[in-house]
């Protein structure tokens, strides 16, 4: 696959991207109240505790919504049109959501469709992305 628009990790999110390189999907989990959170944040938005652990999740989820792009918003995606982006709710907790592309890109999409995470290595960028396939 040609070059991607690589993510710019920050100090909060670096462990998430590092775990993906090892093909592990992780999110933060509050040590105090047990709430999962994603994207990476310094404190728990429910109990405001600082303590957390990176917790590996099942990679199971459902499609809450999706968009299929037919328009070039960045040259990196020009050769992928049309491409679907999924809005996925992870099985671990209501409202715990992530984006990702559908693999294969032309698979049928329905609302509530179960999906599973897969790991897509982009060697030139030294990045692994989590993507989603029909479960």
């Amino acid at each position, binding site marked *: 696959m040609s070059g*991607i*628009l*690589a*993510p*710019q*990790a*920050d100090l*909060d*999110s670096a462990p998430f991207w590092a775990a993906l390189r090892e093909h592990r999907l992780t999110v933060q989990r509050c040590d105090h109240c047990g709430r999962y*959170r*994603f*994207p990476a944040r310094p404190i728990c*938005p429910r109990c405001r505790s600082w303590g957390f652990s990176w917790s590996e999740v099942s990679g199971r989820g459902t499609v*809450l*919504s*999706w*968009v*299929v*792009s*037919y*328009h070039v*918003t*960045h040259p*990196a*995606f020009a050769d*992928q049109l*049309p*491409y679907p*982006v999924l*809005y996925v*709710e992870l099985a671990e907790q*209501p*409202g*715990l*959501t*992530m*984006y*990702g*592309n559908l693999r294969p890109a032309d698979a049928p999409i329905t*609302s509530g469709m179960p999906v599973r995470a897969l790991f897509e290595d982009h060697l030139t960028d030294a*990045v692994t*992305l989590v993507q989603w396939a029909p479960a």
Partner: protein
Amino acid sequence: MFEGEGLRALRDQTAIAGIGYAPFTKNSGRTPLSLALEAILAAARDAGISVDDIDGIATHHVNDSAAVHEVAAALGLGDVPWYHEEFGGGSRAPAVISQAALALAAGASRYAVVYRALNGRSGMRMGASGGGRAVPGAELQYQQPYGLLAPSQSYALGARMHMERYGTTSEQLGAVAVQQRAYAEKNQRALMRTPLTLADYLSSRMIADPFRLLDCCLETDGACALVLTTRARAADLAQPVVTVRGWASALGPDDLSKPGGDLTRTSASLVGPRLYAMAGIGPAEVDVAELYDAFSFSVLVQLEDFGFCAKGEGGPFVASGALTPDGTLPVNTHGGFLSEGYVHGLNHVAEAVSQLRGQAGQRQVAGAAVALCSAQPGYITGATSALMLARPS
């Protein structure tokens, strides 16, 4: 929390006394500063004040415009005691106006100018690339690897969810574009004035499914400016008085990452009750609504969130023809961002002022006395703000 008493005392105390534009084009060939100055000079002339009377300047931008200090210097204003400049695009225009209203009420300014100037088509385009967009913070990392970059894609996620949950259709989205175009046909400022049918809409090319090209707003070079002062001072100026009856803002539950999962409800559902509380009126008393229409769906969902129809009923509401001059709620009477031009919200406010003055020409809504103007962010659950304007009886 709504600390109502302090705000209710400010109801109708601020007036929008002047409106001005720089022409809406696809390629201005001018700097945003030049566009800002043209709109400000026009607004001062419209209000009947001297430029030397301006002692407050405010704007919002996304690093695509002229800063307040540049505008003050270019106008030759040696001393501007009140200024306000915030980062933000679509969510901000009513919020900036509300800051000016507070400054005027406190006596920090006597005549404040609010402007928005940009080369939104020939310069930095909101819809073209996330690479050029000035998105603050870290959250783009979770979207850009997947090509989720433009507001059209973000709002399409909400539209798709609304369609799945409530049965909203493409034809209903198209009804928004068609009804707004009919207003633009009567608006000489509008960039898109050729008649539009639902068949035209349905045959326009797909951009971010379910959005077609004609679901998406224009990208526009241009500027708009307002002169604000107190109601008492406005009574001595050139135009019929239009007051700010109320305002409300909300940061919203999130910006880019959308925890929570519900994309069928905008932050207008937070703003609406506060807006109505400050204004002392409800949706049934609104004569005209200028609703932020970056996308057709933005209008449909705000009609629900501001209480003009029930949740999930936005589709049938717009398909009924409700937005037309003879409908239950004329909406985007200048053609909106879909057909007039897109300067991130101030042109909605200026159009509402024209309607309330009775100066909207062929597109005048008979007897318009109360108008609601709204904002929307680039992400459906992010910050927003709104104004209620009125023609005092």
